[in-house]
């Protein structure tokens, strides 16, 4: 049977494009809705499915995940679908278990050193890549660089999954143990209190950006930000002494970009410039802070959140017998790390790696555009790595026809939404599909990419139900944010309504009063960051972006997991 007759890719072909055979051979494919909606450009999609697949399979094997060999990935017209590969032989499960236990014990004992080693390995490579003089490099060196950067991304994914699988197991175990004595799980307020009041590398960027806004005020530059469109702000700043100072002084804007500018506006999507190339998103955030004023929410709220967390920790521990508190404390700490890790890992993993990949591929694009082999250097996003590599030394293959076909094809599938959350044999039986996922024991799918079933509470008479991800109640205007392009529309006091959110959107959180998402779970980006900003977050509503209209007044209850429409304007 042909499960995807309407979906057959025509213009892109690589080894992980979903085939009819894949649909027959696997029980079910799950859409990675947290990351691949809206659909990716061909190069991004290629990299996402190849990278994740390699990372998952390598890590599951390396740590001996007992019932799962990792996750297989396929691309279907710019969207990523995944399917866990189950270990079915019980003898095999036992052998993997032994390895898994050994690994996890070391992981718990040595977490800090392990994480530092991983960061070290990554930054050493990144520093080397950054030092490469890409504009002056001869073709063969550029080819080598491209190969190295794209290959290293596989290592990035391997370490990524290795860390994730390990931490999420411990997070899930702590949740499991809290269920009985406390009756809480990862949708409970007390759980959310336990999991916040932590620092992470990305907050460093948000705080720095806020300081840059305060500094601009001090230097009397507010009018430059207020009176100029975003793209004119930087040139105007260059014209004045104060502006130049703001840009170049220590802890100034340029230093900020060097440290935190290696991020793409949408994580892992190559078709937008990284901040370091095009700082407009950062400038736009500062403009939005100007409209809001006040203090940096994160720091204003932090003390209270830490106090609440410590109280929650004491309360939770008191519900375990005195004799058990040693190991329970240890496990709780590990579970808490899962949250801050989920957040800050994107800085070290996806953001830097994909910015460097874009830089390498763009340099190749420039070479090809210089020879008129493609119309525009940015057209590299429509080419696959093999095609780029094949052309980069000889520079003689005319890709203009190929790119124009692919572009047309991309523009067509980009519009084709929504995409089915499940495809394959079990797609008509979501319950069976869920139990297949649960059988794999893959906690990453459950906590981020796919999420869990929502318990509806008809007595609330709400318009939408979801899972509570950060407690509190707020009302505000719904602001539909379907891609990074929409972020500039956010005004102070809005409620962000989206399919998912990305870590590069974090600087907008100080402006928000709440968040409602179609997808997500307790370790999704919006859940973690929403908790730190102490704003209500409801995830996994399924249909927020189709039911709520931009500008509508809504009420969000992140404690109960419900959303009400207050006005139809």
């Amino acid at each position: 049977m042909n499960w995807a007759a309407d979906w057959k890719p025509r213009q892109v072909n690589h080894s992980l494009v979903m085939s009819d055979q894949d649909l027959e051979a696997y029980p079910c494919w799950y859409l990675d809705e947290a990351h691949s909606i809206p659909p990716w450009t061909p190069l991004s999609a290629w990299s996402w499915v190849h990278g994740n697949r390699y990372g998952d399979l390598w890590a599951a094997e390396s740590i001996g995940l007992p019932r799962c060999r990792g996750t297989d990935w396929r691309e279907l017209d710019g969207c990523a679908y995944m399917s866990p590969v189950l270990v079915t032989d019980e003898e095999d499960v036992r052998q993997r278990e032994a390895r898994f236990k050994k690994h996890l014990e070391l992981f718990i004992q040595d977490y800090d050193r392990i994480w530092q080693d991983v960061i070290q390995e990554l930054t050493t490579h990144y520093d080397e890549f950054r030092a490469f003089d890409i504009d002056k490099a001869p073709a063969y060196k550029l080819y080598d660089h491209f190969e190295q950067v794209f290959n290293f991304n596989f290592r990035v994914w391997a370490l990524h999954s290795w860390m994730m699988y390990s931490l999420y197991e411990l997070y899930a175990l702590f949740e499991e143990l809290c269920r009985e004595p406390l009756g809480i799980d990862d949708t409970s307020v007390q759980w959310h209190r336990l999991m916040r009041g932590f620092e992470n590398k990305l907050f460093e960027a948000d705080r720095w950006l806020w300081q840059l806004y305060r500094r601009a005020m001090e230097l009397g530059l507010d009018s430059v930000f207020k009176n100029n469109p975003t793209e004119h702000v930087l040139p105007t700043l260059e014209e004045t002494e104060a502006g130049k100072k703001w840009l170049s002084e220590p802890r100034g804007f340029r230093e900020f970009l060097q440290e935190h500018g290696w991020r793409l506006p949408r994580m892992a999507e190559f078709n937008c410039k990284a901040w370091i190339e095009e700082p407009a998103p950062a400038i736009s955030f500062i403009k939005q802070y100007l409209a809001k004023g006040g203090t940096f929410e994160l720091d204003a709220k932090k003390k209270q959140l830490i106090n609440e967390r410590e109280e929650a920790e004491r309360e939770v521990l008191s519900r375990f017998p005195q004799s058990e508190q040693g190991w329970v404390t240890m496990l709780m700490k590990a579970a808490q790390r899962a949250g801050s890790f989920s957040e800050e890992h994107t800085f070290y993993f996806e953001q830097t790696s994909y910015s460097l990949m874009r830089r390498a591929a763009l340099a190749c694009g420039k070479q090809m555009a210089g020879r008129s082999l493609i119309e525009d250097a940015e057209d590299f996003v429509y080419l696959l790595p093999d095609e780029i590599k094949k052309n980069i030394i000889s520079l003689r293959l005319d890709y203009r026809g190929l790119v124009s076909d692919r572009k047309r094809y991309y523009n067509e599938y980009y519009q084709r939404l929504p995409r089915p959350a499940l495809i394959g044999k079990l797609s008509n039986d979501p319950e069976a599909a869920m139990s297949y996922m649960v059988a794999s024991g893959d906690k990453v799918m459950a906590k981020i990419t796919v999420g869990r079933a929502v318990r509806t509470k008809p007595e609330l008479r709400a318009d939408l139900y979801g899972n509570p991800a950060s407690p509190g109640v707020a009302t505000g205007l719904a602001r539909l944010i379907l891609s990074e392009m929409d972020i500039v529309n956010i005004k102070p006091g809005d409620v962000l309504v989206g399919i998912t959110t990305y870590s590069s959107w974090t600087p907008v959180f100080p402006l928000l009063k709440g968040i409602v998402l179609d997808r997500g779970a307790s370790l999704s980006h919006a859940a973690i960051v929403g908790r730190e900003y102490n704003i209500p977050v409801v995830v996994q509503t399924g249909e927020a972006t189709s039911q709520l209209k931009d500008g509508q007044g809504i009420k969000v209850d992140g404690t109960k997991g419900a959303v009400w429409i207050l006005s139809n304007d």
Partner: protein
Amino acid sequence: MDSKVIFWLHELGREDVNLVGQKCAFLGQMMQIGLPVPSGFVLSLSAFDNFMEATGVREEISGYLSKLGETPGDLRQAEAASRHIYDAIKKREIPQEIRHKVEASYQKLSRLCGTDQMPVSVRSSGRESHPGLFDTYLNVKGSPALLHHIKCCWASVFSPRAIATQAQKGLVTQIEPIAVGVQKMICARSAGVLFTADPISGNPSLAVIEASWGLGESVAQAKVTPDKFIVNKETLGIKERRISKKIYQVIATEQGTRIEAVPWEKQGVACLTDEEITQLVKLAKQVELHYRGVPQDIEWAVDAELPFPESVFLIQTRPVVTPSPRGRFNKPPGKGNTEHIVDLLIERFYR
């Protein structure tokens, strides 16, 4: 041994364990200190022995049991023996003297309650507490039904599980007598259990109430996930309410009980009011105090008709049986923290 066959609950105290078994002695004690326990009477341990001797059934039972001694631990044989013994007990008539006393006491109890045929609960009470091992019958009406269920309680000494337990101790043929408590039936709107210490952490400053709609059986038999209320015993403040969806309830019928669905709109609603919760904890603290601070596991019920606070009854109490140290998630002494965490993880997620 005192050969008196019937005692009224209010005559008893906890020193009377050897007359009426632990459960009834404790109930009498609670009544003596003024706690709201449903009134009733007890067929003593002597009444059991009397029945066994007078009817000659003891000989017959010993015959079945001694055969078991040859193959201890054979569950099929134990089941067969149990069946024979049940039949033997049920076909014997209760000696006339005992029967008359039971009928007279039952009439007196009914009169006290202002009716001819008061529904009663019939519970077994052994010298040692065996939660769940012996039978309990609810909503029994009229003398013939009462006499029948008294024999059922006596027979429950010989359930396959009870026989197996005795056999494990190497006491196959020793017959441990049992008393039978007969109490006014509380027509409960809600019922459940109360622990005077958190049964999981052992934290003595918390009382934990598990409650469900209807008679208490649904909680005791874990048929529904009960509502759970956690109360600070010092301040009587309700720290936590976990209201769950209570799909089933056990209700009284003409004779006996049955399970029925809880009306949809009541399923997710708390089955106790705050003042009932507070009242229960107040009563429970008195019980615990009386037992010198030993944490208690108390069964309670809230009457559907009576006004508060007369509606709140304690049905029985026993010391909390703490989960065995190797159960649930406790770490064995000497085992490393990380090793324990990882073993738990495997057990919970991969077995």
